[in-house]
């Protein structure tokens, strides 16, 4: 057992001698169920009762499965419950639990509980076996001839290593490669363009400038989103979603460069947070602050969407809007910067910074 004691000389693993000698295993004390026949019989009855309840519960499960419709419900403890769900789970759950508890009682109170001791051995292979292993390895290496024909070894290792290249390249079509041209058509562009109407989300009502009141918030989309479906729709919506707000023009700061991006205090911003991309619409109409419910980044819509709090680093992109001949709100162009979370190749020099004009 000397392997157990290998250690730096400075730190003995176990005290050479403990201050109190080891008295050895405690004497076994019998349980009530071992000495008292009545206690033993009671335990037996208890276990049998638990196991006896199992078939009853299983029958109940079958009855519920066929007799209780999936839409049935009942009220208890102030909650309306799905009857079938709760009864199915309750019966089978209790049956499983009772089997478990019966097994445990059997092990605890019926089976012998005399503690036993088993020897341990060091994890390492014994010295003789190690010697055999070393000798075998050496013989094998000799017989393989690799020592004299070293290039075979390097060739096999190098060849296997090179196979990593085709293995990785085979994954090259996991997605389109985000080259400059691909990015310009995907994550740096939305379906907004000049003249596209702003419509309310879900019901696609176009928004008339004259009908918007101060303090109003509209969760809006581009009108051309309606034509899309499936993943095209989701991808487009994940970038094009906007919020339209109307504020008193005298209570907000509109930089000179953005005077014609708004209509009488109606401003339009990307709904997609510049942090990790949650849609934001918690707008406080009095403070003009817009809060992201995911990570609490807060943007000031009365000041071109600059960050006033939280982990987001960039202003919310603003969409330049105007009205068409019928007085409906339309976009003047796509967003001037990519919307949504940052990415490495993003040129963030054109984002609005607090104090820009």
């Amino acid at each position, binding site marked *: 057992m000397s392997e157990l004691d290998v250690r730096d000389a400075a730190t003995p693993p176990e005290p050479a001698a403990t201050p109190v000698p080891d008295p050895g295993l405690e004497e076994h004390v*019998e349980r009530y169920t071992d000495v008292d026949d009545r206690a033993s019989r009671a335990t037996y009855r208890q276990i049998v009762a638990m196991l006896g309840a199992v078939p009853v519960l299983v029958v109940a499960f079958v009855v519920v499965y066929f007799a209780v419709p999936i839409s049935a419900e009942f009220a208890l403890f102030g909650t309306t419950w799905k009857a079938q769900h709760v009864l199915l789970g309750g019966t089978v759950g209790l049956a499983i639990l009772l089997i478990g508890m019966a097994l445990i009682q059997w092990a605890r109170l019926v089976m012998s509980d005399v503690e036993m001791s088993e020897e341990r051995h060091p994890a390492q292979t014994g010295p003789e076996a190690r010697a055999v292993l070393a000798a075998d390895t050496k013989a094998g290496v000799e017989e393989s001839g690799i020592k004299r024909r070293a290039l075979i070894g390097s060739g096999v290792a190098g060849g296997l290593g090179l196979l990593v290249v085709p293995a990785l390249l085979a994954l090259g079509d996991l997605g389109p490669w985000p080259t400059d041209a691909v990015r310009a058509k995907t994550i740096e562009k939305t379906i907004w363009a000049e003249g596209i109407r702003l419509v309310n989300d879900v019901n696609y*009502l176009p928004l008339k400038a004259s009908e918007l009141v101060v303090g109003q918030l509209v969760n809006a989309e581009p009108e051309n989103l309606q034509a899309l479906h499936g993943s095209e729709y989701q991808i487009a919506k994940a970038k094009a979603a906007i919020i339209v707000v109307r504020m008193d023009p005298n209570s907000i700061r509109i930089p000179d460069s953005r005077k014609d991006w708004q209509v009488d205090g109606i401003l339009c911003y990307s709904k997609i947070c510049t942090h990790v991309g949650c849609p934001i619409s918690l707008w406080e109409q*009095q403070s003009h602050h817009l809060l992201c419910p995911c990570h609490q980044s807060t943007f000031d819509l009365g000041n071109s969407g600059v960050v006033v709090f939280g982990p987001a680093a960039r202003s919310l992109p603003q969409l330049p809007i105007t009205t068409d001949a019928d007085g409906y709100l339309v976009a003047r162009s796509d967003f001037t910067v990519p919307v949504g979370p940052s990415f490495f190749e993003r040129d963030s020099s054109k984002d609005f910074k607090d104090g820009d004009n």
Partner: protein
Amino acid sequence: MSERKPLRRRRGTRAFVLAATLGLLAVVYAGFAPATRSLAENTEQITQGKDLFATNCASCHGLGGEGLAEEGVPALTNVGAAAVEFQVSTGRMPAPNTVSQPVPRENTFTADEVAAMAAYVASLGTGPGIPNEDQYLPSGLTAEEIAEGGELFRTNCSACHNFKGSGGALPNGVTAPNLQETSPQHVWEAMRTGPGQMPVFASGAIPDADVKKIVAYLEQVNAQPSAGFNLGGLGPVSEGLWAWIAGIGVLVLFAIWITTKGARA
């Protein structure tokens, strides 16, 4: 799966009583609506409202409802009768101070008095009037329309009020209230007038027909039977807490029972 079943109305009696009461209230309000009253009656009501306003509201909002911008007290010149009805009959106004968010308390005014104050404020300028029940009470909606109400709710409301209207947190101690006990009329009025920090959701974008769908969805979603205790309806945070308490907690107790030696002879 495709056959139409009638929409279930759970908590039916409660909803019915609520609807009936509100309907009755609406009838009462309709009786006071300016269009059905003579000019003289109307003037009399406005005068009564002005007196009530001077006593209960003017100390903050000013006698002419001009507000106090530097204290954050809004002007009431263009808020309309609906704003007064919402704020006073939910007990948010009169507020005890101008600092904290007004919270619902018991309304101590009679319906007549609320209507009078609303009429006075309405006379100060423009703004949405008190709605008729056919503007907000959902009836005869199809399942598709109520489902669309769900889409509207999740797009416009759940960001602040949570997916089933349980409420949520906003910056600086402001909260979005729980909507499960809010009456359809007050939902309509809140959307149209934008109380406190809540933005306005005006009819240009969300017409009355859509408000009814939202109201119907909110009512139906909260009447859905739950698959066990709903743990507060707050999502993964409370579920995690229960996994530790009820799951790991109970299983550790079982583990202790399994390994305990118990009493010995």
